[in-house]
């Protein structure tokens, strides 16, 4: 029923996405745009802190609030801050 079992994934709500395309500029390795301009998101789990940080930026950048990052928010913050401290 729920995808979130701790795994960190970037997911798009297809009914909210209206094809602005900003996300694909922020995280092109994870999001491509289809022929109509809608976000096509790689559903596999995000593992490295770098892509998790980018995914979080993409979530915040979406004007339609169509993107979600699944997983434990504290764990996400921890991973992102680890990267910064390096």
């Amino acid at each position, binding site marked *: *029923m*729920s*995808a*979130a079992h701790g795994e960190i994934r970037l*997911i798009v*709500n*297809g*009914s909210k*996405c*209206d*094809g602005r395309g900003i996300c694909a500029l922020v995280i092109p390795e994870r999001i491509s745009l*289809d*022929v*109509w*301009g*809608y976000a*096509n998101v790689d*559903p596999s789990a995000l593992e490295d802190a770098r892509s998790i940080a980018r995914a979080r930026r993409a979530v915040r950048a979406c004007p339609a609030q169509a993107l*979600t990052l*699944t997983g434990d928010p504290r764990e996400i913050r921890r991973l992102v801050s680890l990267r910064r401290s390096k």
Partner: protein
Amino acid sequence: MTIVDFDEARRQRTGALSLVAAPRLVLAGETGARLLAGPPAREGRESLESHRARLGSVNFEDLDPVQLRATVRESGLLGRGGGGFPTATKFDVAAQSPGTPIIVVNASEGEPASRKDQTLLELRPHVVLDGAQFAAAAVRAADIVIYTHATHAAANESLRAALAEREPSSVRIRLVNAPDTYIAGETSAVVSYLDGRGAIPSRGVIPAARVGIGQRPTIVNNVETLAHLALIARRGAAWFAEVGAPEAPGSSLLTLVGAVREPGLVVEVVGPTTLGEVLEVYGGLRAAPRAVLLGGYEGSWIPGEDAWRTPVERHRLARLGISLGCGVVAVIGEEMCGLAQTARLVAWLASQSAGQCGPCIFGLPSLSEQFDAVVAGRARKSDVRKLRELATSVRGRGACGHPTGVVTLVESALDTFTSELKNHLRGEVCAAVSGAGGFPLPEGEDPR
């Protein structure tokens, strides 16, 4: 029909010597039937009196919810609406979530080719209603909502008559007509509709069993799933799992449509069998057809020769990438063109989009248009490649499984009807689309 008769019938048709006496396939009222045990179909709806004489009366409200949920878990029952989700998990989630749960009997059966839920409601409404009472008792629900399909008059009439026969229960029961659309039966669409919005699917991260109608835990169960529960309540989890595979226990209902002896016939699978056996014994087929569409209109085409040997077992089919879905077995007639038939279904399915996700709004009409071009002999090889690319780009998109289901239909048609495809690419256009052996669509909605 007795066990011996069944094997005799099979021996006459196949010439094979069968040493196994246990039935594998049965109709309503035949020996070995489980869901469809009781009087034969011609007798119609089973009365409460007959139902109780046959299965005994159970006062579900007196039973221990924890024990009921343990029984469901032990049975290994998987949902029969098509998704195959473990029923026990829904129950456990609902029981552990705040608020008084609601049970939804999903009787919408929006798949035009499927008749199994209607058949259960028409012949064994009390088995279904007992299952709903079991579900309500297992999670201490206060409400049962029966979500019916407005145009399934016989099923609804039977349901009403059955409800009138039953004693009042402390659980409130109400009937709600589902909108007459393909996607109205999808769990999130059901919850959305019953919560006062449109019957539109959503991709929620929170399951309905936790937060559903009016923020209350909501268990949406298919009619067949609930009917199994009524039998599990009486005969136990071990009895239930005596048939079927450990990965997908219990008997299953199939609906046969298209070029078969009796389109719309519902058969119960109670032992190991193949699609060939199903089509031979109850479809009236003597040899493998050109192809079979398995799992409904968003299912997969399988070449007839392959289908003939294919076991009717959900988990084994799943390993082949095929879903038995809601159990529809649709046979394409000899005089029909599988591509033309698929184009007709794709056009209808495209019209059934909820209109909320871009890849569905734009993707499905494009798929339909490009598939039509192939069928009309207006396409070249490169166009087929483009059609496949388009299909790939739509797969997995959107808030529900609708676009992906259409892609499965399109891709499996292109893989299965290869010789027909060559003919169409050469500009040899065929005419046969509907008529005898055609696949059913809701009245007035046939796009051809």
